[in-house]
């Protein structure tokens, strides 16, 4: 299951971050590391990007980027 495929209100625990280079590094730097709990809060009006909540802050990333984040557990909040 990847982060782009879960609905607003659902959350998950990250298992791995795909992609490469700048993008991947940016995701890691922002705290999207393995075993981090992340929640999808919202989808933008035009369907993209999405709004996440993790490590007590709010982050927005595009769906293409979310698709590179693999989750190992998915739960409803």
């Amino acid at each position, binding site marked *: 299951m990847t982060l782009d495929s879960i609905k607003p209100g659902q959350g998950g625990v990250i298992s791995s971050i795909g992609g490469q280079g700048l993008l991947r590094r940016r995701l890691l730097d922002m705290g999207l590391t393995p075993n*981090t709990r992340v929640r999808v809060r919202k*989808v933008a009006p035009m369907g*993209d990007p999405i709004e996440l909540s993790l490590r007590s802050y709010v982050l927005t990333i595009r769906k293409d980027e979310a698709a590179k984040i693999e989750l190992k557990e998915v739960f409803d909040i």
Partner: protein
Amino acid sequence: MSVIALAGNQNSGKTTLYNKLTGSNQHVGNFPGVTIEKKEGQLKKYKDISIVDLPGIYSLSPYTMEEVVTRDFLLKDKPDLILNIVDATNIERNLYLTLQLMELSIPMVIALNMMDEVTASGNSIDVQRLSSHLGIPVVPISASKGEGIPELIDVVIRSIKENSSPKKHDFCIGEVHKAIHSISHLIYDQAEAAGYPPRFAATKLVEGDGPTFKSLKITENQMHIIEHVVKDMEEALKTDREAALADMRYCYIEKICSEAVVKKQETKEQQRSEKIDEVLTHKYFGIPIFLGIMFFIFWMTFNVIGAPLQEVLEEGIALFTEATSNAMIAFDVSDWIYSLVIDGIYAGVGSVLSFLPLIVILFFFLSLLEDSGYMARVAFLMDKLLRKIGLSGRSFVPMLIGFGCSVPAIMATRTLASERDRKMTIILTPFMSCSAKLPIYGMITVAFFPDNAATVMIGLYILGIAVAVLSGLLLKNTIFKGEPVPFVMELPAYRIPTRRSVLIHMWEKAKDFIQRAFTVIFLGTIIIWFLQSFNWSFDMVEDSSNSILAFLGSLVSPIFIPLGFNDWRASTALITGLTAKEAVVSTLSVLTGVVTDVELSEVLFTVFTPLSAFAFLTFTLLYMPCIAAFAATKRELNSMKYAILTALFQTATAYVVGAIVYQIGSLFLGG
């Protein structure tokens, strides 16, 4: 002289703290070779200590210009102290940068900002424990309320005197620790020679950081050893080097936080933000609300407050001009001095200065949007629209302002997070039809398209947008090729902007604009005045049709044959349009020697056909912006060369599109 480097994440309150620590004695410039702003100021009451405000960054990775600039500054300029501002409400992610800064072996102090919000929500942070874990002083503050600032300054002064670097950097555990240590021994001497703290260099080599490999002149043999060590580490951890280090840092942070931070609930500000976002980024209402806000800002700026203020200023300038004029007549100065001062300097700089109220008011609203945290939401709402041309949602606001005036729009690109986006936005924004072009559209449409005036005008606006989109695609696939900066953006909690920071922001923009009005713009208007008022024997001309400018106009006019017009008056008007676009109208009426609008319409038919008039409008819409906008471009790109290239690109685009309009139009209309 001691230097403090102020470093921290975006949205951590860095600018607010900077403004609190420094007095009015600020110097704003750029880091060498890039468009990234470098602010330097004196620590209040300490004349021998200066503070450099570094770009807001999340990491010291080698990918973005902002990160590279910060790194280079810290490594090469070796400040006496790093003052690291940390947002206490968001401590985990903020400490990620802290851990990287600690490796630089520079004395460090942490300003733990927004502590008031943490305690007010019933949460707590054990500052003592945090400080002993990290091995550096931590001072709780509230930058916006000014709490803890005197204590912070005391600690900073003491730390500079003691000059002790962070001793602790064993926040690495297990396999990563092993790798960093063995590599650190291997490259110790080279790191010292290159001016890199060995520990920082070793971490960066484990991370696979290109610039560090180069700076340390790592030999092929060492390369093999390093790669071997890293490979062992990767296999043991079952992950790659970059993830391993990020994971290690976050694990260490989680460990500290589990001991020092008690978090019962989200802060009140975070809870409030979530509620506000339910409305402002609502699925259906979010975009209409945004457009409503922008409409309100435009209406206030250009109509309600701006226009009357502009009138007052214009009247003031007129009075001043008259007084000067009378004085000069009384002193019987020569004609050319009189003309230089009145027709050249006063008319030119005066007309540009009358834009000042608009700029100040617009930036009042923009800094409210920026400081409150709403600008990040605009990027979230609008990102999808701009993505296709390789930009992100953040560029939407400058482009929108471009419909009002390119000058503040270009100045507003300063807030864009990436240098690439900033450059592209600066190039594309002038294609948005600015309000100064309206009189030109008015004059031409009244004469040639009286029945379809609205259609023609809307068509021009749409054409501008379409050209911007196409140019964006072109730039994205040519000079701005390569990996765009990813759209991974924090949505900070909404906060009430402080009066001080809004005022400082307005003052900075006003100062910036006035400076330019008296430098680049001053020079530009004098040149145009000279060309307009003199002939080749350098005698003043009564009739501007005998001037050098008119000659140049007739010289370039054949260039416009593919656009369907070849008249020296049209090309001359385009040249004077560089001072301000409205000047196209006044020049055309002066050169055609007509007084009334009806006459003008008739005369225009001798210059243009309806189709070539439309090609002329197209060219006017797209060619290089006025000299004030050009000066802003130069300032923001921090390079005359790139500013000129930008102007050439815009003018070439205008020419090509104008020619296409005329040529294709002639096919259908038969000329």
